[in-house]
């Protein structure tokens, strides 16, 4: 019986157990003096097991009511409160399922690292996972902030794994700085929310009665703090630097999961902790989200570094999610519960989708990097023939992120667009004006992401290799394939079984906005509102396409002979055929750059006619950096110069300071 009583029952206890397991694993990995295989293989596959456990706990949490526990650590009055309700459970599922694939992949990716750095890396890696899980579990401000910063810190050390390179150091610094500023503003958020007299549990915050003004202050601070982590424009500058700098599995986790913790926090504060919402919040979030989405995808289109491209596309996806968040708020404050439920479903759905396909794409670039050591797309190409596994699995991810049916990216976009269509009849007329434009922007972003993905996939995997060395590129080994397979399978299944997924999400939606989507009786048919309104049945869709495809194939095969002759490409009969004649990454992005040049600081380096070996270089830099961040830096520098003047070495002046202070105070206090 004793044993049984020790045995955890509540899901939250299980979750805490797995977090502990991860922590222990991290330190074991640090101390273990074993072979590379033991380190990377064993430790990481155990970590993957932990991820699976977390996912399982999440599923259990979605099924069962909220469970909570208290740890004996933390501040004196404030031990760590943990709580696993539907919201955190859903994000647990996201974390666990995505992290499983990535970690399995990592176990083969990190094989070739040097022992010392691998030991540290495994520590930070598992600390990172544990931190993210704790963020989801935390039920008081202190635990939340500790977990939040542990997450940031460990990911910083992961980003700077290769700290010999100055750019990477710079990226890490920028990342940690913005993360820290965001964290301080979160502190202020909780400062307003707290009941006073140092009661920081979320429970008391839930019942804090705030005036609309202070509620808005909380909301804005939270938007700033979480936005800094999520890469919300204009707080996004760290993201395209840090994500490429990190080792690919880490980038996958950061992009796929860590950004979502920010979304989680935003939902937690706005819908759970705050019990008053103001109408204009939603409009603000919607506008910011749309700007972010467009900005991100435009810059993704002009990148030539493959991981940087993916990072920018993460910004785009976060923008879409944030737009959905804004719509949810609009509907919720407008008393349209059903619509709020719809957009919220779209939001959560897109969050988990992004975790899968962005994870998949990042590990895909990881294996390209592993095989070729090249990140610049200008030196890649034609890899489909040398690393088929990576190529075909990445193709699934690319199609999914481009929002093409029947994969998962399409489902969430579909839901979101449906929400846009149902807006007429909002109380504020100006919203009815805004919504169509918003819908147009989302559609534009989606279409552009297709452009981006064609560029990404076509330049890296198709065409002729732009470098002879690529001929020897080898595919990643079985563990890596397994990880990618898992993620790809996730993309497909999430795309094909939307009704099931939505029924899982349902408790979360019910918890946050009070009601959920009316499920259609038919498990094949996804009908958010009603069958007349709209419906989508990916399985039928997929079946039809497949059937038609096979039919045509066999018909062609049967009726006509299948003789095939191989020869050189025709290419309008041009004799010269050279890999360099294909579109480079820059070339492919050129039209977009031409159209959206206003957002960019374009640096071109064009050869003049007399160059011995003429080379073209073009970089499209983020204009915000130049018009926002550098001025801020300059102002700070100027201020510190002024401060420095006070300190100029002459003791008489120092005495005058004391004297003046004394006199001033004497006058002041009378």
């Amino acid at each position, binding site marked *: 019986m004793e044993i049984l009583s020790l045995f955890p029952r509540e899901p939250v206890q299980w979750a805490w157990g797995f977090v502990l397991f991860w922590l222990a694993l991290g330190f074991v990995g640090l101390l273990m003096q074993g072979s590379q295989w033991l380190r990377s293989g064993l430790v990481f596959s155990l970590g993957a097991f932990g991820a699976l456990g977390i996912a399982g706990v999440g599923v259990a949490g979605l099924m069962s009511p909220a469970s909570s526990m208290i740890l004996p650590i933390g501040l004196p009055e404030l031990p760590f409160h943990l709580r696993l309700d539907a919201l955190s459970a859903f994000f647990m599922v996201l974390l666990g399922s995505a992290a499983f694939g990535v970690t399995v992949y990592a176990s083969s990716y990190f094989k070739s690292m040097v022992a010392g750095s691998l030991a540290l890396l495994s520590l930070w890696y598992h600390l990172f996972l544990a931190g993210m899980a704790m963020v989801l579990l935390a039920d008081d401000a202190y635990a939340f902030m500790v977990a939040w910063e542990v997450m940031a810190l460990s990911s910083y050390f992961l980003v700077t794994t290769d700290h010999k390179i100055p750019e990477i150091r710079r990226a890490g610094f920028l990342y940690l700085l913005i993360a820290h500023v965001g964290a301080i503003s979160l502190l202020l958020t909780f400062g307003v929310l707290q009941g006073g007299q140092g009661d920081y549990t979320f429970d008391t915050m839930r019942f804090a009665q705030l005036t609309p003004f202070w509620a808005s202050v909380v909301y804005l601070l939270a938007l700033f703090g979480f936005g800094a982590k999520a890469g919300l424009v204009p707080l996004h500058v760290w993201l395209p630097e840090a994500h490429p700098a990190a080792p690919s599995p880490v980038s996958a986790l950061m992009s796929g999961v860590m950004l979502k913790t920010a979304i989680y926090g935003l939902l937690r504060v706005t819908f759970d902790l705050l019990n008053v919402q103001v109408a204009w919040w939603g409009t603000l979030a919607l506008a910011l989200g749309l700007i972010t989405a467009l900005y991100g995808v435009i810059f993704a289109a002009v990148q030539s570094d493959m991981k940087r491209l993916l990072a920018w596309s993460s910004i785009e996806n976060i923008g879409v999610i944030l737009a959905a968040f804004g719509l949810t708020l609009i509907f919720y404050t407008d008393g349209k519960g059903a619509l709020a439920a719809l957009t919220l479903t779209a939001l959560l759905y897109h969050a988990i989708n992004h975790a899968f396909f962005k994870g998949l794409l990042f590990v895909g670039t990881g294996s390209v990097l592993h095989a070729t050591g090249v990140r610049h797309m200008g030196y890649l190409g034609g890899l489909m023939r040398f690393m088929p596994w990576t190529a075909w699995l990445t193709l699934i991810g690319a199609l999914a992120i481009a929002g093409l049916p029947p994969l998962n990216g399409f489902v969430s976009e579909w839901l979101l667009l449906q929400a846009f269509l149902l807006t007429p009849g909002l109380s504020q007329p100006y919203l009815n004006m805004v919504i169509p434009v918003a819908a147009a922007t989302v559609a534009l972003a989606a279409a552009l992401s297709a452009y981006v993905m064609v560029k990404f996939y076509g330049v890296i995997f198709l065409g002729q290799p732009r470098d002879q060395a690529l001929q020897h590129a080898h595919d990643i080994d079985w563990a890596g394939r397994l990880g990618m397979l898992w993620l790809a399978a996730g993309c497909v299944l999430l795309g094909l079984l939307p009704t099931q997924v939505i029924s899982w999400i349902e408790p979360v939606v019910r918890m946050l906005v009070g009601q959920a989507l009316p499920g259609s009786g038919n498990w094949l048919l996804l009908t958010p509102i009603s069958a007349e309104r709209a419906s989508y049945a990916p399985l039928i869709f997929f079946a039809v396409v497949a059937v038609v495809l096979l039919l045509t194939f066999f018909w062609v095969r049967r009726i006509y002979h299948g003789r095939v002759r191989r020869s050189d490409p025709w290419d309008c009969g041009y004799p010269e055929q050279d890999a360099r004649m294909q579109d480079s990454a820059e070339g492919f992005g050129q039209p977009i750059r031409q159209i959206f040049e206003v957002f960019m600081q374009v640096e071109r380096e064009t050869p003049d006619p007399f160059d011995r070996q003429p080379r073209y270089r073009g970089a499209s830099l983020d204009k915000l950096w130049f018009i926002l961040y550098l001025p801020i830096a300059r102002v700070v520098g100027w201020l510190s110069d002024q*401060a*420095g*003047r*006070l*300190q*100029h*070495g*002459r*003791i*008489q002046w120092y*005495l*005058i300071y004391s*004297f003046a202070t*004394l*006199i001033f105070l*004497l006058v002041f206090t*009378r």
Partner: protein
Amino acid sequence: MAPSYHLQIVNLLAALLLLISFAMLSQRRIVGLITLFAWQGMALAASAALVAWATGQHHLYYSAALTLVLKVIAMPWFFYRTVRKLDVDRDVEPMINIPTTMLIGIVLVIFAFNLALPISQFSGTVTRSTLGIALACVLLGFLMMITRKKAIPQVIGFLAIENSLFFAATSATYGMPLVVELGVALDVMVGVIVLSIFFFQIREAFDSLDLKHMEKLKER
């Protein structure tokens, strides 16, 4: 209650103290400065003794004696020695010219007086009004430290502040508890010893006691 001419004498001494402070402020030569400092100590000792006699606070005799020994004999002697050894007895150019300093000084005195005015009402002692003068002397000493550019005058200004504090302690409150007095005296003595070491260190490092050599540490 002691007869009133004691008080008049104490107040007279207070005025003398203030006068000496002003004199120090205007004094250019270091040797002269030291002499004035010695006189200040003398006046201090006298006032302490007087207050002791008038109010029968016997421990004030000890402090008077201590002052006499330390501030009238030991320190001036030590300073003379230093000046002779390092022969730094030149005219001291203050940062601000003398008249201006004087004007500032007068302003400070007025300020100090009406700062001390509301307080001295509450004093149970016979010599309440001296508090304002003590405060004025403190501020004047401060001003002197600011205006002087050489090490020794600055230190003397510092010690002048100490003196006026001591004056405040004796005349306005009939002296602090003896332990404190002793402690203060000890500290002052040790301070002076430390200073003497310092002077030689500075001298051998910069071969002068001019403070303008000591402006290297700054934000640039």
